[in-house]
């Protein structure tokens, strides 16, 4: 197998405002190989690839393709150099069919969809893609959409394929299929770059691994000589302790108790069925389950955002000792009862923060009612914003930056920082570490533990079973809207949880226990 350099990057630097996304990155990709680019969130992987595919333009440095210097100003130029990128967020048009999306932007030859369908079909057969080309995108599953994306780049004759976190949205079976296709493409002579932060995938699919850390190029190793600990070390710099500090709960008193809670969806299906549990103060209650089992609705029901078909949600006031039923109360009514409820929703920029507003304004979303008459206080939220930025090490040019411009992890820190600053009595967090790098994740774990030590009832919805078993005092497992068990976090095994997660789950939906 002859190996020639398909693409070479030399000293690439890219700066956004004051944030250096890539600094002096140099790397080479050969034909007939799969190169993994590994790095934590915000390490500049996607930015680097966007420069190859013409979305961004490097501020400094050169790109060589097939040995010649290439200037890539636009995605069109990238296609000319036979580079195709499959973005994390698919670039497909929902109301178009697969084949319309595939031929989009090609300006050669006659416009003939039927002929194009035939050619595309041949490509599909060659690499083993299964897809209905006349299906509209909005009717497709995520995996089908991804297939369309890959076929699209191949149809355009791409020899260098870049896949940005392609496995994040796939089921294990779909991942196996994707990897098989990737190997076939590699054997066909293509150069493939895969961006990921899952180590097991890196080890199973790639020939070589290049590691980026905080925008800088750390090094490249052959996969056959690498193992998880070597890669982790390259990725995070120093060795991170994998132990989450878990303290023993002190005077765990009842704080919130749900009885027979049932929630129906718009079309009348029950999303939650007779849910019973108690969340105690000074304790982290984990919620485990296959995604879409009702976790979101459960938290929303407590927060006053879901209508209950039946059941009650009782809150025990730690000061007065009174019981309040939160059922069918609005968030405002709940607040007026003196219940200090903090909620870190799954959809950060949809429910948690306003993307186009700056950090201070987002802090004000919790305090806009304080002030004199029609005027609001800006000083306190601004101080809070500064404190959150400092304490949680948010990487941002300043508190005036719209949160949309921050990276995922920093957005999350702003949100969690705001919610904790309200000194809650109940703190609910849904997937608070999703998309965060290891260090940021630990920071969030520590914050949750700190809250627990302060006597807060913490409810943590998580997906990583290792984290759940190390962080939580008790773990509630939910499956298809039914609580299938509440186990002690100490001594719980992943197998035990996995079993509960799939129990009584009439397999209508695809999903897997991790």
């Amino acid at each position: 197998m002859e190996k020639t350099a398909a693409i070479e990057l030399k000293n690439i630097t890219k700066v956004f405002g004051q944030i250096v996304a890539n600094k002096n990155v140099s790397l080479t990709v050969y034909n007939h190989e799969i190169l993994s680019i590994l790095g934590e969130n915000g390490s500049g992987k996607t930015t680097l690839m966007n420069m190859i595919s013409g979305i961004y333009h490097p501020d400094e440095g050169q790109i060589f393709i097939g040995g010649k210097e290439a200037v890539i100003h636009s995605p069109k130029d990238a296609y000319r150099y036979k580079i195709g990128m499959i973005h994390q967020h698919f670039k497909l048009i929902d109301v178009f069919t697969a084949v319309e999306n595939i031929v989009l932007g090609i300006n050669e030859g006659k416009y003939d969809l039927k002929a194009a369908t035939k050619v595309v079909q041949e490509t599909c057969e060659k690499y083993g893609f299964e897809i209905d080309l006349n299906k509209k995108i909005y009717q497709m599953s995520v995996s089908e959409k991804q297939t369309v994306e890959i076929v699209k780049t191949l149809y355009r004759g791409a020899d260098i394929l870049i896949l940005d976190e392609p496995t994040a949205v796939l089921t294990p079976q779909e991942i196996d299929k994707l990897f098989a296709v990737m190997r076939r493409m590699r054997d066909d002579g293509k150069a493939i770059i895969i961006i990921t932060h899952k180590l097991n995938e890196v080890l199973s699919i790639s020939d070589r691994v290049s590691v980026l850390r905080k925008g800088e190029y750390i090094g490249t190793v052959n996969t056959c000589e690498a193992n998880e600990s070597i890669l982790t070390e390259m990725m995070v710099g120093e060795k991170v302790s994998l132990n989450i500090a878990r303290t023993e709960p002190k005077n765990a008193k009842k704080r919130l108790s749900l009885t027979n809670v049932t929630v129906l969806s718009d079309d009348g299906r029950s999303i939650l069925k007779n849910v019973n549990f108690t969340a105690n103060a000074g304790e982290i209650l984990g919620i485990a389950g296959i995604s879409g089992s009702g976790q979101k609705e459960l938290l929303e029901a407590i927060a006053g955002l879901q209508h209950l078909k039946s059941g009650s949600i009782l809150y025990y006031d730690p000061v007065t000792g009174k019981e309040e039923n939160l059922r069918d109360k609005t968030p405002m009514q709940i607040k007026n009862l003196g219940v200090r409820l903090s909620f870190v929703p799954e959809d950060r920029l949809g429910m948690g923060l306003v993307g186009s507003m700056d950090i201070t304004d987002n802090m004000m979303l919790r305090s806009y009612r304080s002030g004199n008459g029609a005027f609001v206080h800006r000083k306190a939220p601004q101080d809070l914003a500064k404190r959150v930025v400092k304490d949680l090490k948010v990487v941002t040019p300043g508190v005036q930056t719209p949160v949309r411009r921050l990276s995922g992890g920093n957005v999350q820190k702003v949100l969690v920082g705001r919610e904790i600053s309200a000194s809650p009595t109940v703190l609910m967090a849904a997937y608070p570490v999703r998309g965060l790098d290891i260090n940021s994740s630990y920071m969030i774990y520590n914050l949750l533990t700190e809250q627990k030590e302060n006597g807060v009832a913490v409810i943590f919805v998580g997906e990583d079973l290792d984290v759940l078993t190390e962080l939580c005092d008790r773990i509630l497992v939910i499956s298809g809207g039914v609580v299938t068990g509440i186990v002690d976090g100490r001594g719980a095994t992943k197998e035990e949880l996995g079993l509960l997660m799939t129990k009584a789950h009439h397999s209508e939906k695809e999903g897997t226990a991790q």
Partner: protein
Amino acid sequence: MITSFLHRAVMQGIPLLFGSTGEIITEKSGNLNLGIPGIMYVGGISGVIGAFLYENSLVDKSNPNAFLIIAIPLLACLLGSLLMGLIYSFLTTTLRANQNVTGLALTTFGIGFGNFFGGSLITLVKTDVPSITLSLTSKYFAKTLPFADKCGWFGEVFLSYSFLAYFAILTAIVVGFMLKRTRTGLNLRAVGESPATADAAGISVTKYKYAATCIGSMIAGLGGLYYVMDYASGVWSNDAFGDRGWLAIALVIFTVWRPNIGILGSILFGGLYIVHNYLNNLIPMNMSTQELIKMAPYVVTVIVLIAISMRKKRETQPPASLGLAYFREDR
């Protein structure tokens, strides 16, 4: 009476058809051009200015050059509306200004522009009535198919229109075909649905947005020209164009962004717009009732809007990125 009603309905509908076809192309590129009423107004007055200058330059008024008397107002109209389209594109696509604000500003500007020059011309010719008549030009613009008179009701309903009316229908058909069956149409729709996707596919978003908006503006401008030269028989008076520009935009929604439906839709709207006159002959009614009936096209549009939002069919929804500016390096 039915034939004459249909005839008038078509005459009323043609400016709306031009306007809506132009706006459909524009909206398919993701630009919500609310400047269409102003652009149609500018198209009308530009044509009037062209015609006025040509008519005044003639020594022998009985024998004008048939080509020039058509071509000069036509080019003036296209140029005027093209400039409006360029202003809109420059502001919203290049400078990424808010589309709604820009469009509304252009409508205000266009109407002011038309009234200013309309008023100036009326002052120039020193007439007693507040209007200017370009009957010579109108004679050429209003020429119907030669055999229309001989074909009875068929002739009146189908053949008794000027070339611009047939051009409007042809444009709608061609634009419909272009959107659905050609590569240009596919690319254009892609730009309006998701500019980032189109960009990643190598389509120049800026080029398509500019081209669609400018061509759309020119088509819409012809609606203004048709209104003055044919429908109003060459008589320009300020503000006579009325709310036809807004009706054209309502028609876009009514047709669920399909120019082909616009052909029948424009006749329906035209009919609804004048039906009060005919009803008044049958059952006499007072002014306020007539005004209520004039509202019918808008009511129909609201019903269509409700219907498409209730059906939630993806194909009948507006272009997904309608009204949004596109910036490539935006994160």
